[in-house]
Every structure is written in structure tokens, then in C-alpha cells.
């Protein structure tokens, strides 16, 4: 099974709505900073920043966060997660950081991401934006902004493909784990 859940237009609409929600909830973007989780989250963060600029006419800073060093399963697998760049070229102290990921699943990546953020600074608040929430949380974590809620079974995989990776924009539900 290989079902298309969101096509390019759906993804664009979801990102546009989330951008509006972020602006509304924070009453503008003065103190807002976007930080995407490597790698899918970084692309979505940049798109959100683009839409926010169209709406507000103001740039919002975007950073990239690598969470490999903070995962809770290091040493439990045969291979280590690849280390990618963390690039947060701005101060996050006293700012509202919107953490962005493509798929929210167990919540463990978000736990790792929050620890990674705390080592960089002390934000005023952390909010979470995800393109897809597929359920099956293993930690008490929820998203503030969700592109689409998709109930899945544990035997399924949600695959987010984005044009930044040289693919076309599409979200697929696949039967069987990766």
C-alpha cells in the first residue's frame, strides 16, 4: 500500500494556515524564532518563514537543530545517528522558539530537541509545529500547530518528500516499516 495523503497544494495550504496561527497566537512575530529539526523540519521552517514574511512583511530568523547527540537510544543500536550541523545564528534567550518537525510520532525526537535547545539558551517559551501528527506518543508531548492529523497504525510509515530534497512535494502513507 502506498497512499498519497497530501499533495503539493495540500502541503502549501497547511503551511499557510500554520503561519497564520503562529502569528495570531504570538500577536505578531517580534519575539518569535523558528528552529527546524534536521533535516525535514529545516525545510518546513524555511517555508513557514517565507509565508510569514508575505503576511507580516517582516523577516523571521530561522535556525537548524541537530538532535542526534541528544537521542535516548544512542548505544542501543548497532549504528549511531549521523551528526548534522546545528546552526542557530541568533540568541534564543527570552525568545519564543517555534520548534518545527515534519512528522510527530513517539515524541522522543521532540524531547531530544528540547534538551538540545536548553543547551543553547533559555527561551521564553518553546512551541511545537509539525506538518503531520501521526499519533502513538510515548511521552507527554503535544503540538501547538499541526498541518494534518493522520491516524496511523504502528505498521505504517509516513513519508514526507519535499522539493528541497530534489523530490516533489508529497506526503505518503506506506504499509510496512522502513
Amino acid at each position, binding site marked *: 500500500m502506498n497512499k498519497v495523503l497530501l499533495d503539493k497544494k495540500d502541503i502549501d495550504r497547511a503551511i499557510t494556515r500554520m503561519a497564520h496561527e503562529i502569528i495570531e497566537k504570538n500577536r505578531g512575530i517580534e519575539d518569535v524564532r523558528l528552529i527546524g529539526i534536521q533535516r525535514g523540519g529545516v525545510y518546513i521552517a524555511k517555508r513557514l518563514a517565507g509565508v510569514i514574511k508575505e503576511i507580516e512583511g517582516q523577516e523571521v530568523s530561522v535556525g537548524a537543530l541537530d538532535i542526534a547527540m*541528544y537521542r535516548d537510544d*544512542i548505544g542501543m543500536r*548497532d*549504528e549511531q*545517528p549521523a*551528526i548534522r550541523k546545528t546552526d542557530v545564528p541568533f540568541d534564543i534567550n527570552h525568545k519564543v522558539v517555534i520548534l518545527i518537525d515534519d512528522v510527530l510520532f513517539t515524541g522522543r525526537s521532540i524531547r531530544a530537541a528540547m534538551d538540545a535547545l536548553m*543547551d*543553547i539558551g533559555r527561551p521564553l517559551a518553546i512551541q511545537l509545529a509539525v506538518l503531520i501528527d501521526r499519533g502513538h506518543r510515548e511521552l507527554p508531548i503535544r503540538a501547538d500547530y499541526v498541518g494534518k492529523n493522520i491516524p496511523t497504525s504502528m505498521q505504517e510509515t509516513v513519508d514526507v518528500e519535499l522539493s528541497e530534497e530534489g523530490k516533489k512535494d508529497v506526503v505518503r502513507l506506506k504499509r510496512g516499516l522502513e
Partner: protein
Amino acid sequence: MSSLGIKDLLGIKGLSRKQIYLVLDTAAGFKDVLKRDIKKVPALRGKTVFNLFFEPSTRTRTSFELAAKRLSTDVINFSVPTSSFVKGESLLDTIRTIESYGVDYIVIRHSSSGVPHFIARHSHASVVNAGDGINEHPTQALLDAFTIKEKKGYFEGLKIAIVGDILHSRVAKSNIYCLRELGAELRIVAPPTFVPHGIDSFGVEVYFDADKGLKDVDVIMMLRIQNERQEGGFLPSSDEYSRFWGLTEERLARASQGAVVMHPGPMNRGVEIMSEVADSTSSVILEQVTNGVAVRMAVLYLLNRTRVTKHV
């Protein structure tokens, strides 16, 4: 997901280009950590690193210790003057004792070549060679390669001169293996007494004249004159060495525009390298020190949990 696919790092010899690049790319991520206010990540929390040094070392030991601590491991330093080894305990018994503490990594330096290999065969822990006799010093070569990549951006066809006592230098050997694998054009610049037999098989050009050997090179790697290894009459005098082989501003000027100068430390100022060169903008010697921590973090990280069945 990534891993070196090996339990121990005993030498550069035998590592593929892909494995070397994996270390360099991973080290870039760790170098970012070292620039932050909080210079520590939980990547190897709960693991234990045993620094086992049978030869005096301040820099390498400190660098490994810092790398291990930045990864949240517990570190134990064990050096010869304070150990039972001098009371007559055999190396194998020492290793078995260390194993019984439940250590995950043993970082070993020894004046005899091959000791890390022996330990690796007899231990479940991952063994990292921090210098064995005149054989290899793999993490030094990896940090040198990392520094070159940062400064020059490529290796293929890059002209690199290694200057000094190649014969006694494990740093030189590891660097030759590493930089050859990465595709650099290597030159050995040294007096004949400092060039090992069979150097031809290393695939390097040999120059017995510093002025010729340094012409148009992009990277100059100076080696330390190892006074502790000069009993065989290889070196007439420091003065003479300095005159013919020391890196002066005039010699540096023969290298290509923007050439970088490296030295593994500790430097003998006025012997193999002149102060005005060591402190010049061409020198990347202090960056090598910083990069050493990042590269050693990467090595510890990438060896973790790549446990293969031990071959005892």
C-alpha cells in the same frame, strides 16, 4: 545512521576514504558544540573511558580527556608512575583489571609499537591508539586532515610537505596513510638519516633539500625533533638541523600563496620552526589543538556500539 564499522581505532592504515570522511564530517558537528556556552552533550552518557598512558603526554591525554568529558562519559586517567605496572604486573593482567571495572573505551599510548593491537585483541572495550612507538598516531592524522579540509577545502592534488624526522615519527606515518588515501600529493622533506627504508612504497616524493622540497607546496607539516629518540646519532646538532631544515620566513615564502603551516606540538622554537613562522598568520597550530578535541569526540562517538565478536 553512521558508524565506522570497527571496534577499535588502531591506525589509519586500512581505513577507507569513506571512513576517514565520516570522521571528518562528524567532527564538524562536534566542533560546533565546542563553540557554545554549554560545551557538553549527552551523547555517550553512562560510558566510561580509560586513559592508559605508558608514555608522558600532556596534550594528547588532555585532548582525549576533554573529548570524553564533552560527550558526558566518565574518564579515568591512569599513567605509569602511579600504576602497579611498575610493581611488576603484566600488561595482560593490567588490561584484565581495567576490564573488570566495566570500561567501554581504552585510550592507550605506549612506547612500543603494537601494544594497542595486543590490548584490542584481549579486551571487549573499544581501543583507541593514542600513539604506539614509531608506528601510528591515528587521531593526530585525522585532526590534521580535518584542519586541512577546513583551511583548503579539498585534498585531491593538494601539495603537502611533511618535514623532519619521518623515521621516528608515528605522526608522519599516520599522516602519510591518511593523506595518500585522501588523494593529496605528498612530499617528504628530510635529511637522509631521518628517512625510513622502503619509503618508496609509501607513494611519496622525497626531497633531501628543504628549499627545493617546500617550493609551491600548499601545506607544510613540521615534525618535532624528538630528542628522546635520538640515541642512534641521527642528528649532528640542533643548530645544524635548524640551519638546514628549520622553517624560516624565507623558506615559508617558497611555498604557494596562502600556504598553511602545521605542527603537532610541542614545538621546539628556534629548532624546527622559527617563532616568527609559528606565530604568523600562516600558522594553524592552535586550531589543530581545538580541532583535536572535536575529532576525538567523533572517533569515540563512531566507535561506540560497533561491537564485533572479539577475536581472542
